[in-house]
Every structure is written in structure tokens, then in C-alpha cells.
């Protein structure tokens, strides 16, 4: 069991480094097409991390919808506009000041977040005056593992989605319809 956990951790860190490296390249490439492809790489690494975090169905959706459909839409628009390379695609110094400030905030956040454990989360929730029931925070952290073992990876997502979240799910279809109509209205030259 111990070696098993270590292998999972190593794989997690490999994909974490992959995701961060791809994201860095995505925001620094001057060519928008290269940026988009590096973002696909980031999303793929994130899908692998989702599998490690026991979200197999969401990982598949991530590859299909995000890395597939949404990024193809981006690539279509980039190629449709036929943008040339801009060598200095950067804003001026005020943006950079904010960027350095953000990096400082990130440094402090990382030190705190990296030491987070399920036990610490449970302790904080149980001492906070929050509306969250402390019993909802499982110190063992196996709520999802139990659900997946009994219902399967898709079934454990589908059952609450179509029971507890049925109304939001249906509202989503209205949102998508509005988005389709809005995109056509905005992008069409003459209505």
C-alpha cells in the first residue's frame, strides 16, 4: 500500500509539472496558435490529475469538451482571423507591477495550501462558525471512493445529477440555447 501511494504521488507530480510548464508556455508564446496548443496540453495534464483524484468521468469530459470542442473553436477563430505574429504582445509596466504582486501573493498562498490535509480541513470546518455540518467533512476522505465502488464512475455522478440537480441541469440547456442564438447574432454580418 505504501509503495502504491508513492507511485501515485510521483505520477501526480509529473502531471503537475507538465500542467504548470504548459500553462507558462501558453501565456508566454507570442503566436496565438502555439498558445492554444499549449493550453490543450495543460488541459490534458489536468485530465490525468482528475483521474488520480478519482474523477474519471469528469476527466473524460475534460478531454472531450474542453481539450476537444472548446479548443477547436478557439483554433477555428485564430485561423479564421489569420493573425500575424506580434513580437511584443505585452502590456506596459503597470500590468507587470500587478503581476509581480500576484506572484508574491502566490508564494504565501502556496506555503499555506501545500500543507493542507483532510484532517486539517475537518478541524477548521468543525471550529468555524460556518453553515457546513462538520460531519460532512470526512476525515477518512473516502466518501467518493465508496460511491464509486458501489455505483461505478459514471453512475456515482449521474444519480445525484439527475435527482438532486435536475432543475439546474435543465436550466443549463436554456443557457446553451441562449449562447447559440447570441453567438449567431453577434458573429453574423447581416441579420
Amino acid at each position, binding site marked *: 500500500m505504501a509503495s502504491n501511494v508513492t507511485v501515485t504521488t510521483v505520477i501526480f507530480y509529473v502531471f503537475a509539472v507538465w500542467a504548470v510548464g504548459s500553462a507558462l508556455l501558453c501565456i508566454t508564446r507570442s503566436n*496565438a496558435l502555439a498558445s492554444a496548443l499549449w493550453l490543450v496540453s495543460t488541459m490534458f495534464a489536468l485530465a490525468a490529475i482528475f483521474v488520480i483524484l478519482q474523477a474519471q468521468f*469528469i476527466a473524460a469530459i475534460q478531454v472531450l469538451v474542453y481539450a476537444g470542442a472548446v479548443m477547436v*473553436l478557439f483554433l477555428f477563430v485564430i485561423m479564421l482571423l489569420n493573425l500575424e505574429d506580434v513580437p511584443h504582445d505585452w502590456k506596459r509596466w503597470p500590468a507587470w507591477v500587478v503581476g509581480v504582486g500576484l506572484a508574491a501573493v502566490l508564494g504565501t498562498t502556496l506555503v499555506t495550501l501545500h500543507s493542507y490535509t483532510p484532517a486539517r480541513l475537518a478541524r477548521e470546518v468543525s471550529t468555524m462558525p460556518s453553515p457546513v455540518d462538520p460531519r460532512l467533512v*470526512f476525515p477518512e476522505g473516502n466518501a467518493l471512493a465508496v460511491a464509486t465502488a458501489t455505483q461505478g464512475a459514471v453512475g456515482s455522478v449521474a444519480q445525484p445529477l439527475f435527482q438532486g*440537480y435536475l432543475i439546474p441541469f435543465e436550466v443549463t440547456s436554456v*443557457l446553451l440555447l441562449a449562447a447559440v442564438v447570441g453567438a449567431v447574432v453577434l458573429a453574423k454580418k447581416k441579420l
Partner: protein
Amino acid sequence: MLLGPSLALSAVLFVLGVAGVLIRRNAIVVFMCVELMLNAVNLTFIALAQLHGVSGQIMVFFVMTVAAAEAAVGLAIILAIFRHTQSVDLTHINLLRG
């Protein structure tokens, strides 16, 4: 479990997305950085869904749907801007500047 490392990775990706939005001028790249931020938040949801049950994953499902709708409408807006100004450089879009 990997809760702490996942939250830390999510923070890194989110800040990279914010940095991209702040320093880039190409509207499409800025838009892709917004998608990166959405992905970072999805990672937080999924990391905590391990503890709290599957509701976090369902929230990610909805975030992805909204992101897809947002991408369609946003790219249509960028197309309209490009047709108007022949450029997607955000520093050239200053009609509202006083």
C-alpha cells in the same frame, strides 16, 4: 488523497491565468487565460469532492457547460471586434476612454 498538492497546483494555475490576462494584449490569448483560470477552479472542486462526495464533480460539470457557452459568445464578440477594427489588440480598443 493529495489534497494539499492539488490545492497548491490549482493556486499556481489560477495565478498563471490571471498573469496572462494582465500582461497579454491579444484578446484571444486573454480569453484562453480565462479558460485556464476556470480549469484551475475545477481542480479545486475535484480535489475537495474526494472528501465531500460527488457534488463537487457535478459543479465542475456545470462550470464546463458555462465555459462552453462563454467561449461561443466570447469568440463571436472577438469576431465582431475584429470586423470593426481589423485587430484583436486590446490596447487599440479604447473607444470608451475619456
